[in-house]
């Protein structure tokens, strides 16, 4: 399949969605909660889209997202606290560091053909290892939060990447999402993309076709960890402090769930999943805990959320992307566009 043309109906649809996203904060300006929610949705969409490269395309169940996010956050934050380096630069240093660590771990893992469940466990352990390290490493981490400097407005606020509204964060995440989409699209229709898709299905079969599966997986891991590191840099600024709890297996798991529910190997899948699942989960949390106050049912939303995931896994094992695609094709034939 050739790379699709730039201005086909699919891309027009993407542009429409993008336009809606750009004007969204204008309507939500006063409601910081909804803005925060929208930013969180985008943040997870970026992470899950980056995961799509290693998980969706290459089929490696990577559970290490939070390790790279945490490394990005701590590097960016520490550089700001210690050396007064702006997060706009720090986030790239953090991303490079995350990528470097991922490479150091990826070389032996892929070299010894650690796959499937074992790869998932190894990458998941990475998160816990880093949490323990940063919990004990008092110079950078430690059990108490380290607050990032804050300035309410003016250029200082931009220098610190700290704002008293979520609007700038929303746009930063939106920009990252667009970049990750372009990266995804580029890779998908390149030698690397075809190789990753194939090795995700059968590694031996792709090796005898002249594909260096270790190198391909390593490249995928590097791109993914770099993006996760970038997101981490912004993540720290959004929350305004650094804490070892950033290395959270829950976050890693959420990223993987979004990637799988969205549709493995489908570029826009993770975004759809993030929009539906993250906002739905938040809605459940808000509405269900209010429904039974004082009954100790604060965790009820997680139960409902889990049920939804089970239903999706049972009836749409390839994710929700094929459903949306069918709907989109119907709409297209209804409108009469080719």
């Amino acid at each position: 399949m050739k790379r699709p043309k730039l201005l086909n109906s699919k891309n027009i649809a993407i542009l429409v969605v993008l336009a809606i996203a750009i004007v969204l904060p204008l309507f939500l300006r006063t409601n910081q909660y909804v803005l925060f929610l929208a930013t969180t949705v985008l943040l997870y969409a970026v992470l899950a889209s980056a995961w799509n490269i290693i998980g969706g395309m290459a089929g490696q169940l990577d559970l290490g997202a939070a390790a790279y996010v945490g490394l990005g956050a701590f590097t960016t934050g520490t550089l700001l606290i210690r050396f007064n380096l702006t997060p706009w630069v720090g986030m790239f240093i953090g991303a490079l560091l995350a990528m470097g660590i991922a490479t150091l771990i990826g070389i032996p893992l892929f070299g010894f053909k650690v796959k499937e469940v074992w790869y998932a466990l190894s990458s998941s352990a990475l998160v816990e290892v880093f949490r323990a390290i940063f919990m004990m490493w008092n110079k950078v981490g430690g059990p108490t939060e380290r607050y990032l400097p804050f300035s309410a407005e003016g250029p200082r606020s931009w220098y610190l990447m700290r704002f008293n509204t979520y609007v700038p964060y929303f746009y930063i995440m939106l920009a990252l999402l667009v970049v990750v989409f372009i990266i995804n699209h580029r890779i998908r229709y390149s030698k690397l993309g075809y190789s990753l898709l194939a090795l995700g299905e059968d590694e031996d079969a792709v090796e005898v076709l002249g594909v260096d599966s270790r190198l391909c997986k390593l490249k995928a891991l590097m791109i993914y960890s770099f993006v996760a590191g970038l997101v981490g840099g912004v993540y720290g600024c959004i929350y305004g402090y650094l804490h070892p709890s950033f290395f959270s297996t829950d976050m890693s798991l959420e990223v993987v769930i979004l990637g799988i529910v969205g549709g493995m190997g489908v570029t826009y899948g993770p975004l759809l999943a993030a929009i539906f699942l993250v906002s739905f989960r938040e809605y459940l949390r808000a509405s269900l805990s209010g429904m039974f106050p004082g009954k100790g049912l604060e965790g009820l939303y997680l139960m409902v959320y889990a049920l939804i995931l089970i239903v999706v896994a049972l009836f749409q094992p390839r994710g929700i992307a094929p459903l949306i695609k069918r709907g989109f094709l119907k709409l297209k034939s209804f409108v009469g566009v080719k």
Partner: protein
Amino acid sequence: MDTTSMLQVSNLTVQFGSLKAVNNVSFEIQRGEIFALIGPNGAGKTTAFNAISGLLFPQAGQIVFKGTDITKLMPHKRCKLGMARTFQVVRAFNYMTVEDVVRVGAYNRQGEDTVAAKVDQMIELCGLGEVRQRVCGDLGLATLRRVELARALATEPELLLLDESGAGLNTAELASFMDLLRKINREQNITLCIVEHLMQMVMGLSQRIVVLDSGEVIATGTPHEISNNQKVIEAYLGKRVTQC
């Protein structure tokens, strides 16, 4: 170095625990020929194949391909040198379309600008034009055998290893598949090494045969010689009971 030799296998031994699946096997494949490796179930044909293509490393012995020692080389590097293979149990990429699968192989020697032409050429050659947009998971065995062949050929090999590629095909499918193999051998000058159970395919195609039994070579020769070899008959059918 001998220029007519494509592949030299000497004293190859592959061991799984205490079982010697391939024991001290030596043979040589000449450039341009159709060579067959046969033997009853469990004779070690596929194991020998896996060692040649690099999916497992032998405990002893040497494999020389076009004058280069490849015994310890990774599979993808062997492919770069000009070796390709298919699998006994078809290992297509189930969620990919036929043309995407072939494209993965074609990238072996083609860049982004020439890869599409190569894919078209291979799809045409293997008669996959009608199914090129279909996903492999939806296709039947006979077609998948052709897809595997197309993606292996797309890597532009000089030596093609075919592991039981006739298995599961009906008579008509087998005949057309054999025609295709002959055409590849003759027109593209690709050396073929086939591992086969089906005598019809072995006898009809190959010029030279090596027979394995319990991991050891028991006979070498032309199809005619092999079919009259007492040891081979015994390996396949069992020893003749002297009298009853």
